[in-house]
């Protein structure tokens, strides 16, 4: 992928670590082109969620440049930050619905906070968003009465309430049954195209995600190790991609946790 | 819990809180008495005020007619100067006397006024001329012991043999 102006998010040589001695992200560079659905995949702990949070400007890079919607996240003041976030929608891993409000109030929240629209108009918009995710009938339920899949769909409706330009998905498929899986993945695609938005999905669900995304980046140990279209990835000969995509237990990511040899532990080598 | 029920309960709560405050101020405290009444100030000098405190009552014939507002030490006459606010409706003659008394045996001290016979009344800022200080327990005891010792001496007996009468 080449650097060009039609990128909604551009990440150039970014380094980051909560503890400067142990960087979580090492020299990461990637582009998210406008209008596409991009996947970022890797093992747990490879830094992909941290990267997503940095795109949402929750943290700033210790080195390198991170531009979101044209703005360098390090130069954003508080007002600039909030202005940028109004154009984003983020779906958290378990939905993160506000438990003290109904489904309706949850979806209405961004509308009520950021616009002065009259209640009648808010109502129409909320019902529209809920209809898009198929939960219009559940508007009066409380989050505790929803199943995991339904909660995530409501959170999705809330995330698209203000018609964002950029959608961020943090592990949207974790812990879902196959039907909800299919529902959410189809929604990600259809909403992206309907809104004319750009989407970034951070996940480690390979098969389902490859069917949804236009492009995919693979990360391991805080670095981008591979990238390509879903078709090129499937038949890739790169060892990491091969192991990851086909779910092989051993390969570049070792099966055994590093330590002394088994023989030494059983005290056999000593004799 | 919809909005209006919530507001109702909060309203009741706040109203009850203020009601309790009012109860404390009026029924329990002394807000009703002497805070807005008209008063005039009168001074009195005492050799010893004992335990008299600011806000102690001024009573005459047992009725509260005012409050002590200030207690100061006069460095020239070496006496205590007590300032009191008396209710405007109570007029006292110029030769009224002031005594520091104790309510009950161990109670708090107050100023008792006894009206004199002067046809002219006290004005705002006047000083009472006749005063009697508080009774100090230690002085009483030492006086008693001194009297007892003197008695023992005139009878020709030594103080140690007082027990044998």
């Amino acid at each position, binding site marked *: 992928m080449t650097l060009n102006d039609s990128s909604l998010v551009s990440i150039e040589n970014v380094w980051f670590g909560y503890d400067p001695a142990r960087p979580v992200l090492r020299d990461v560079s990637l582009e998210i082109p406008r209008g596409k659905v991009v996947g970022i995949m890797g093992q747990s702990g490879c830094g992909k969620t941290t990267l997503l949070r940095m795109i949402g400007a929750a943290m700033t890079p210790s080195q390198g440049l991170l531009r979101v919607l044209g703005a360098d996240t390090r130069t954003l003041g508080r007002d600039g930050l909030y202005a940028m976030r109004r154009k984003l929608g983020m779906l958290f891993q378990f939905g993160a619905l506000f438990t003290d409000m109904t489904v309706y109030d949850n979806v209405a929240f961004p509308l009520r906070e950021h616009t002065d629209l009259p209640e009648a108009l808010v109502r129409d918009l909320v019902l529209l968003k809920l209809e898009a995710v198929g939960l219009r009938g559940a508007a009066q339920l409380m989050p505790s009465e929803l199943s995991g899949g339904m909660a995530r769909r409501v959170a999705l409706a809330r995330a698209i309430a203000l018609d964002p330009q950029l959608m961020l998905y943090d592990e949207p498929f974790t812990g879902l049954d196959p039907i909800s899986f299919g529902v959410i993945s189809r929604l990600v695609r259809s909403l992206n195209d309907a809104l004319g938005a750009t989407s970034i999905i951070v996940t480690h669900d390979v098969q389902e995600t490859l069917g949804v995304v236009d492009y995919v980046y693979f990360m391991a140990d805080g670095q981008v190790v591979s990238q390509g279209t879903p078709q090129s990835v499937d038949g890739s000969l790169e060892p990491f991609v091969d192991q990851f995509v086909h779910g092989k237990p051993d390969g570049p990511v070792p099966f055994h946790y590093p330590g002394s040899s088994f023989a030494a532990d059983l005290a056999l080598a000593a004799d | 819990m919809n909005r209006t029920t919530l507001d109702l309960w909060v309203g009741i*709560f706040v109203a009850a809180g203020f009601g309790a405050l009012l109860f404390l101020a009026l029924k329990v405290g002394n807000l009703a008495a002497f805070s807005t009444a008209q008063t005039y100030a009168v001074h009195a000098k005492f050799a010893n005020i004992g335990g008299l405190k600011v806000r102690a009552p001024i009573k005459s014939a047992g009725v509260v007619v005012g409050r002590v507002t200030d207690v100061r030490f006069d460095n020239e006459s070496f006496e205590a100067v007590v300032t009191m606010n008396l209710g405007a409706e109570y007029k006292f003659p110029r030769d009224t006397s002031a005594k520091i008394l104790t309510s009950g045996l161990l109670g708090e001290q107050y100023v008792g006024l006894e009206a004199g016979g002067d046809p002219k009344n006290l004005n705002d800022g006047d000083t009472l001329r006749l005063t009697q200080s508080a009774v100090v327990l230690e002085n009483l005891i030492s006086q008693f012991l001194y009297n007892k010792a003197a008695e023992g001496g005139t009878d020709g007996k030594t103080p140690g043999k007082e027990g044998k009468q």
Partner: protein
Amino acid sequence: MAGAALRGLFERLGAAVTARIWRLGFASRFLFYLVLHSGTALRRFSLTIREIYFAGVLSLVIILVSGLFVGMVLGLQGYHTLQRYGSSEALGVLVALSLVRELGPVVAGLLFASRAGSAITAEIGLMKATEQIAAMEMMAVDPIARVVAPRFWGGVISMPLLATLFSAMGIYGGYLVGVKLIGVDEGAFWSQMQAAVDVREDVLNGVIKSFVFGFAVSWIAVFEGYDAPPTAEGVSGATTRTVVTSSLAILALDFILTALMFTGGNGL
């Protein structure tokens, strides 16, 4: 080596003290930010009213019942002690002054800390653990202004009201036991009380105390909740810390305030 062990102990002690001071500084900055961004809590007052309901109204039962019992015990104990000195008619004074000056603000404060304070900490801590706070931030809504500030001001407003209700209820309890049950003269009960309790010195100072306690408890509760680690143990630890720290703070502040207020006397 004993020397090394001793030095280790001192290092740990120093580290613990430094950590606490650092945390206090952090909590102070948090409070400052909170107060600065309380505009939303005041402009959209319905948010604060909701919190007054959860902190104040829902604490009413425990406050009123406890107040009644404390007052009744004061009446009983007070009578048995005063009667020995023939001053049983001063029961009203004893009950009223004890409650208005000390027991009202302090006991109500302790009860408030354990009921409402822990609830606030748990609520905010859980919101943080379930990423609701992060979600709000991502939606460009300041969670401190929207979630934390209303709970803080709700606590500050509720506390003095609860303390006053506690005192009033306690005096009624003392009246029930002293006058109705034991038979102290009703007139003497109220008249001596009215003579001894001064609105400015006693009642007002009690109200000031309860404001200070409310401020302290609310601050501790919201800070511990916001700072809690986003795990189950984290939230439960934060809730316990709220109750313990609030209780200690109330007792320490009570001493300081009492020394300032009630022993000022004639200046010397």
